[in-house]
C-alpha cells in the first residue's frame, strides 16, 4: 500500500507538470521544450536554498519564480528576437543545464537531513493522527508521513488547479486563452500578443519548476538530469487527459491533465511491475504518447467507416 500511495503522490506531483504543459501546449499553443530545463531548475533552486537553511515554503516559492523567469526568457527569444518557438525553447533548455549545475554546485544535492515541505506535512499529519506514526488504510498499515505527503500534494494541486481555473476566466486569462486560439484576432482587439505569450510561458514554466521542486523534496534529492524527458511525460498526461474528458472546457481540460498524469503514472508503474526494463522507460513513454496521439484518430476513422457501412447495408 505504501508503494501505491507513493506512486499516487508522485503522480499528483507530476500533475503540476502536466498542468504547466497544458498551459504552454494548449493555452498558448506553443510547443515548449524549456520544460525539461525548468523542471530541473525548480528542483535545483529548492534544493540549494533548503540546504542553506531557507524555509521550505520560501524555497518552493523561489523555485516557481525561477521557472517563471526561464519561461520569460523563452517568450522573449521567441516574441522579441523572432526566434522560432521550438528553437527558443531548445536554447533556453540547453542553457539551463549549465545554470542548474551552477545553482547546485554539483550534479546531485541530497535533502535527506533537511527540513522540506514533506517534513511540515508529516508534522501536521502526525498531529492530526493523534501522534500515530502509522495508519491503517483499507486494512493496510501505512506510514503517516506517506499519507500526509499525499494529502498535502492533493491539497496543493487542487488549490493550484482552482486558482488557474479562476485566472483563465478573468479578463487577463481570457485574453491569454484567445492569444493561443487566434493571435490575429486578439491583436486586433488591443492585446499585446508578445506580452501575453511571455506571460503564459512564465506561468507554464513556473508550474513545471514547482513540480520539480516538490519532486526533489519528496524523493529527497535534486539531480541535474531529472528533467530529461519531462516534456514528453507532460504531453502524454495532457493528451491522455484530453482523450478522457475532451478539450472543450477549461475546467475539464485542467482536470484531464491531472487525471492523465495519474493514469500515465499508473501505466508506467504497471509496465515496470510486469518486468519492463527501466532502461526502456523513456522509449515506452514516447511510445505511449505516439499511441495517444494517433489512436483517437484511428478509432474515429474506424467508427465512421463502420457507421457508413451499416447505413449502406
Amino acid at each position, binding site marked *: 500500500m505504501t508503494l501505491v500511495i507513493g506512486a499516487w503522490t508522485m503522480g499528483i506531483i507530476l500533475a503540476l507538470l502536466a498542468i504547466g504543459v497544458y498551459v504552454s501546449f494548449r493555452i498558448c499553443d506553443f510547443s515548449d521544450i524549456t520544460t525539461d530545463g525548468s523542471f530541473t531548475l525548480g528542483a535545483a533552486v529548492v534544493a540549494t536554498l533548503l540546504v542553506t537553511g531557507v524555509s521550505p515554503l520560501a524555497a518552493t516559492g523561489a523555485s516557481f519564480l525561477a521557472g517563471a523567469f526561464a519561461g520569460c526568457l523563452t517568450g522573449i527569444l521567441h516574441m522579441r528576437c523572432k526566434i522560432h518557438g521550438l528553437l527558443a525553447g531548445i536554447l533556453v533548455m540547453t542553457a539551463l543545464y549549465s545554470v542548474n549545475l551552477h545553482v547546485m554546485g554539483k550534479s546531485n544535492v541530497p535533502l535527506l537531513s533537511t527540513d522540506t515541505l514533506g517534513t511540515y506535512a508529516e508534522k501536521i499529519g502526525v498531529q492530526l493522527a493523534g501522534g500515530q506514526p502509522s495508519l491503517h488504510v483499507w486494512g493496510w498499515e501505512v506510514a503517516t508521513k506517506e499519507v500526509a505527503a499525499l494529502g498535502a500534494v492533493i491539497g496543493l494541486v487542487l488549490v493550484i488547479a482552482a486558482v488557474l481555473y479562476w485566472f483563465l476566466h478573468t479578463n487577463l486569462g481570457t485574453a491569454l486563452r484567445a492569444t493561443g*486560439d*487566434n493571435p490575429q484576432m486578439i491583436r486586433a482587439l488591443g492585446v499585446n500578443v508578445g506580452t501575453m505569450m511571455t506571460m503564459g510561458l512564465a506561468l507554464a514554466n513556473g508550474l513545471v519548476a514547482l513540480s520539480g521542486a516538490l519532486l526533489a523534496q519528496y524523493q529527497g534529492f535534486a539531480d541535474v538530469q531529472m528533467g530529461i524527458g519531462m516534456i514528453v511525460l507532460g504531453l502524454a498526461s495532457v493528451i491522455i487527459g484530453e482523450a478522457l474528458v475532451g478539450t472543450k472546457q477549461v475546467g475539464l481540460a485542467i482536470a484531464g491533465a491531472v487525471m492523465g498524469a495519474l493514469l500515465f503514472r499508473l501505466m508506467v508503474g504497471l509496465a515496470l511491475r510486469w518486468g519492463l526494463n527501466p532502461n526502456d522507460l523513456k522509449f515506452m513513454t514516447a511510445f505511449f504518447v505516439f499511441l495517444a496521439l494517433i489512436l483517437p484518430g484511428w478509432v474515429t476513422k474506424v467508427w465512421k467507416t463502420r457507421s457508413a457501412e451499416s447505413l449502406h447495408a
Partner: protein
Amino acid sequence: MLEITRVAKAFHAGTPNEVRPLQGVSLTIPDRSFTIVIGTNGCGKTSLLNAVAGTFFVDDGSIHLDGHDITRWPEHRRAALIGRVFQNPFSGTAPTMTIAENFSLAVRRGLGRGLGPSLHRSLLVELTDRVRSLNMGLENRLQHAIGSLSGGQRQALTLLMATWRRPALLLLDEHTAALDPKSADLVIQLTDALIRREGLTTLMVTHAMPQAVHLGDRLVMMHRGRIVHDVSGAEKQRLRPGDLLDRFEDLRRQELLDPSAAALLQAAYV
C-alpha cells in the same frame, strides 16, 4: 478623422521580388464618412488598410487618426481606436471560445485587462440584447463555441464585436468576400445599418461593384499603389457599375493594364 499623408511601402525592397503596394498615397477621411476602396488585385487596397491598422509600419509618410499620430504605434495600440473585420470569417474570432467569451474580449478593446471576471451578469444581459438584434437566433447560443457557427454568422458577430465600443475608425477588409451570396447580403445589410445608425467613420475595401456603388458616401479607386479616382457626394450617388468598368477601361488604355487583365476584370466584376 483619418489623415493618410504620402504613405509609401515596399516589400522585399532592393530584390528582384520587390513589391511596392503603396506609392505615396494621401487620403483624408472626415468623421462619419463611409469610404469605399476598390481596385484590381494587387493595387494596394488591402495594404492601405493594413498600413492604417498597423499590421506593418510604412516606409514613408504619416498616418493620423482622431488627433493622434499613429504612424509608429504598434497594431495592438492602434486597436484602441480601430475596429476591424477581416476578409476571412475565421480571422476575427477565437474558435474554441464561446460567443460570450469572444464578446468579453471585444468589450475591453483598448482597455486594460486585469483580474476581474471576464463574464458577468450585466454583460450577458446586454450581450443577449445586442445579439438578438441580429435576428439570427444566436442569443440562445451564447455559451456555444463560436467555431461551430457558419461563416456568415461569425462575420456578423465579428462586426458586432468590432463596433461594441465605438471605434474612431472601422476597417472592413472585403468582409463578405468569403461568404455565400445570401450570407454576404445579410452581412452587408447589417453593416450598412450599423454604420448609419452609429455614424461610424468607415473605410471598406470591396471587390463587388454593387457594394461599391450602393454603399458609402465616397468611393476611392486604387491602381498600382496610387489613388486614381476619388468621388463623393452627388457624383458618388449617381455612380453605376458601368462607370467603374469604364474607368478600369480607361486605365487599360493608359497602358496601365494589359488587355488580358481587363478581360479578367470584366469576368470578375460583371
